[in-house]
């Protein structure tokens, strides 16, 4: 009875003390003290459209692999998807449920591939799409009738809101208006800057010069499996004109190649390393393993940040092609020894990067400090937060903390491939191969 009498005042005092008085904790930051943190939004995006076909049945879109993601001036999230490459055979191997085709784990019988380019708003609604999947043929002439690059890979939205797309199974980079009109192309479709190889589909040789078997790394008009693009809204340091196109010509070739806004070659930098690994000298990209360079991003410090994916490092250049520094992707010293070992285990750590905060969709226009690098780590199934200046790993985006985070649950990753940040500090990560989705990570609080 005595206990019951005191229960009420004790409960009130406790609630008041915690709620209003003695304890005013600050928000816990996943990235460490004073660092921002993010929470995965498992409800994003909303279910994709399900148009009713001529058979009277609703056919829901499936994206298949979401290879690239990029942000436009309205914080719309563009994705380039490979679901439409149904039945494609690449390098003699039929792409099955594990890579490329949509049939299999992520599609019901009535599903249809989404358009190759799909844009979402931050609430998860599809706000735009373009590219006609029917342009892509299956069988012998696969891709030959297509306009879009084969092996859609990276994308970028420039200062004029045009959408750029590159393909790592092709030799082209294309520029589209937001309504999907092809405005410009660099390179020749189906022809790469490389020696003849024997890529066949159904017995026919296609894309014969594409691949990394022996790169030429030299053409002023051809590319070899370009992975990523950036466009410079600032005047070129040499020519003084705006709109230079920086291309990570990096699945077949091993270079960053710069064209002017009309598509004329200006310069290139970076060469092929004789091997792959930590011994590769500065300014070279790993010889094998694909994705070298795998990204190119312009910073607001007037520098060019590139991903040497097989060597797990970022290589930084000035815009004229002088090497500035290398940022290796190393495990955090805060990580437990076990985690450090686990992080070291996986290669291909420098898959993609973006800056944070980045209040403009163009990294190089953002007036903020861009103090963090968001590093998408394909090899370890996580996304690391690095301090840009020191290169130190200070946090992770995945729900596993500073350890690899494989899986298909919310906040886990399967082949995390590319990432982009919006002006309000949210982060979007696209997953390819078996991941086949894009995840949204919402900035906690208002920390910039």
């Amino acid at each position: 009875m005595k206990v019951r009498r005191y229960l009420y005042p004790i409960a009130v005092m406790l609630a008041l003390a915690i709620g209003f008085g003695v304890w005013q904790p600050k928000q816990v930051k996943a990235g460490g003290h004073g660092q921002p943190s993010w929470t995965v939004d498992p409800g994003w995006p909303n279910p994709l459209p399900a148009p009713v076909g001529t058979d009277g049945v609703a056919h829901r879109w499936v994206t298949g692999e979401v290879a690239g993601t990029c942000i436009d001036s309205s914080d719309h999230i563009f994705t380039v998807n490979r679901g439409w490459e149904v039945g494609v055979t690449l390098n003699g191997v039929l792409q099955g449920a594990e890579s490329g085709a949509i049939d299999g784990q992520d599609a019901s019988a009535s599903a249809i591939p989404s358009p190759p380019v799909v844009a979402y708003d931050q609430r998860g609604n599809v706000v735009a799409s373009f590219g006609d999947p029917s342009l892509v043929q299956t069988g012998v002439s696969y891709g030959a009738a297509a306009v879009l690059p084969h092996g859609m890979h990276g994308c970028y939205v420039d200062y004029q809101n045009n959408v750029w797309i590159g393909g790592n199974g092709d030799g082209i980079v294309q520029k589209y208006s937001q309504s999907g009109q092809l405005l410009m192309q660099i390179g020749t479709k189906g022809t790469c800057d490389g020696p003849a190889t024997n890529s066949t589909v159904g017995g026919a040789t296609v894309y014969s010069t594409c691949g990394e078997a022996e790169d030429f790394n030299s053409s002023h008009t051809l590319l070899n499996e370009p992975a990523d693009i950036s466009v410079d809204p600032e005047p070129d340091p040499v020519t003084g004109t705006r709109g230079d196109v920086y291309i990570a010509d990096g699945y077949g070739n091993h270079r960053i190649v710069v064209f002017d806004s009309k598509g004329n070659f200006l310069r290139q930098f970076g060469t092929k390393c004789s091997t792959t690994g930590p011994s590769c000298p500065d300014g070279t990209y790993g010889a094998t393993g694909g994705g070298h360079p795998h990204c190119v991003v312009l910073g607001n410090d007037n520098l060019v940040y590139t991903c040497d994916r097989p060597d797990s490092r970022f290589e930084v250049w000035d815009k004229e092609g002088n090497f500035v520094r290398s940022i290796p992707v190393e495990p955090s010293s805060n990580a437990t020894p076990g985690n450090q070992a686990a992080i070291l285990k996986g290669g291909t750590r420098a898959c993609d990067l973006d800056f944070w905060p980045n209040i403009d969709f163009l990294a190089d226009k953002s007036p903020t400090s861009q103090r963090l690098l968001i590093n998408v780590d394909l090899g370890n199934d996580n996304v690391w937060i690095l301090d840009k200046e020191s290169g130190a790993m200070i946090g992770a985006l995945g729900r596993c903390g500073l350890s690899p985070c494989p899986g298909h649950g919310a906040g886990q990753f399967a082949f995390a491939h590319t990432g982009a940040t919006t002006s309000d500090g949210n982060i979007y990560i696209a997953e390819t191969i078996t991941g086949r989705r894009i995840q949204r990570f919402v900035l906690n609080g208002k920390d910039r």
Partner: protein
Amino acid sequence: MFAVLGVCCVLASPKALAHDFPLHTVMNSFVRIESDRADLIIRVPLDMVHSVPFPLNGRRYNLQSSGPAIQQALIGIANDIEIQENGVRLIPSSSIGHLTLPSERSFEDYSQASAALAQPMDISTEIYFDQGFLDAHIVYPISSAKSVFTIRTILAPDLGDYAKLTVRFMPLNAGSRAFMITSSSGRVPLNPPWYRAAEGFVVLGVSHILSGLDHLLFLLCLVIPIRQLRVLIPVITAFTFGHSVTLIGTAYDLAPNGNWFPPFVETAIALSIVYMAVENIVGAKLDRRWMIAGLFGLVHGFGFSYALKESLQFAGSHLLVSLLAFNMGIEIGQLFMVTLMMAGLWLMFRHARHPRIGAIVLSAFVAHTAWHWMMERGAVLWQTQWPPITAISIVILARWAAVLLLAGGAAKLLSRLTKRSRLATVTASMIAPPAEKSAV
């Protein structure tokens, strides 16, 4: 004048719908009041001005010869965005416009936007069709900075609520406020006096309760077994007190954030109806119903707050007055509906031989409906991610627990006092024989 009429609603033309790519539907604007002038600075996405024939050079705008089209668009904007001073429409004295790139960031604040528009337009800029903005600066002479100003937009009315106009209102010598309006918002006061703000919120409160079927069903559950005003008053008062607490708390940012909370509230509201209806069916005691009503009132208050959220921006500097006015509107609507329900139930049961059976059947219907709501809303809730237990969430939880405990304690105290005074009255009447009886 003819030219003005010619381009009137130019931005509202049905052609605005024809664009395939309605990506940009937000227009940013500033309205700054100075002693003798009002400045409207606005950024309109170019894909919303298709009916203005901007000259093209291939896929790009020809900026060199875009002057006449810009002038036409400026007249259209001045017509489609109406600013009034004390009920009189303001007439522009000057205007200037530019076409700008999507990456142009001067609209981050007023001074940058104003400075950028004061510069000559850079005609060497390459802007692709539909991929850029029309920036405009329109100046209106005004008679006094202390006047009451209103704004209304009919820009692209065909796009309805998808075409949003964000307005940052910057009154003279006062803090700025942000609004977001659409063509369906009507005329919105930028600096409403308190009575004007209150008036709007009373109407909003009434309309919300009248259109909120779940709140009405909850009220019906309260009324079904009681049907006596004297007994019903404490129950309704407790419900009102409960929802007022959470409604006001939410307006002051005391409610939890997160995707999980709205479906949680919606599910809890459906649950409250099921509970009340089942209690009616099983014939639970009604003497403690006021406590349950007060508790569920807390939940319904969160529900009311969602109706208020979008509109609270129109409260100007009168947040508390507007909140109380909204609450008053809720009460007016509630009293009206309770009266209507009591009359309806009286008509329904006045000749019934077994009104209890009638109450059970009616409650069963209500329970059935609410059960389906609960399952549907629960399914949505199930799919959302629950918030991690953090220090912040514990603090918020503790605050609400404190409010609940204090409210419960006050209610208990009130109940005891009422009971004691009733007992005292009964005891007194037993001791003293009625004067009338002794007189007989």
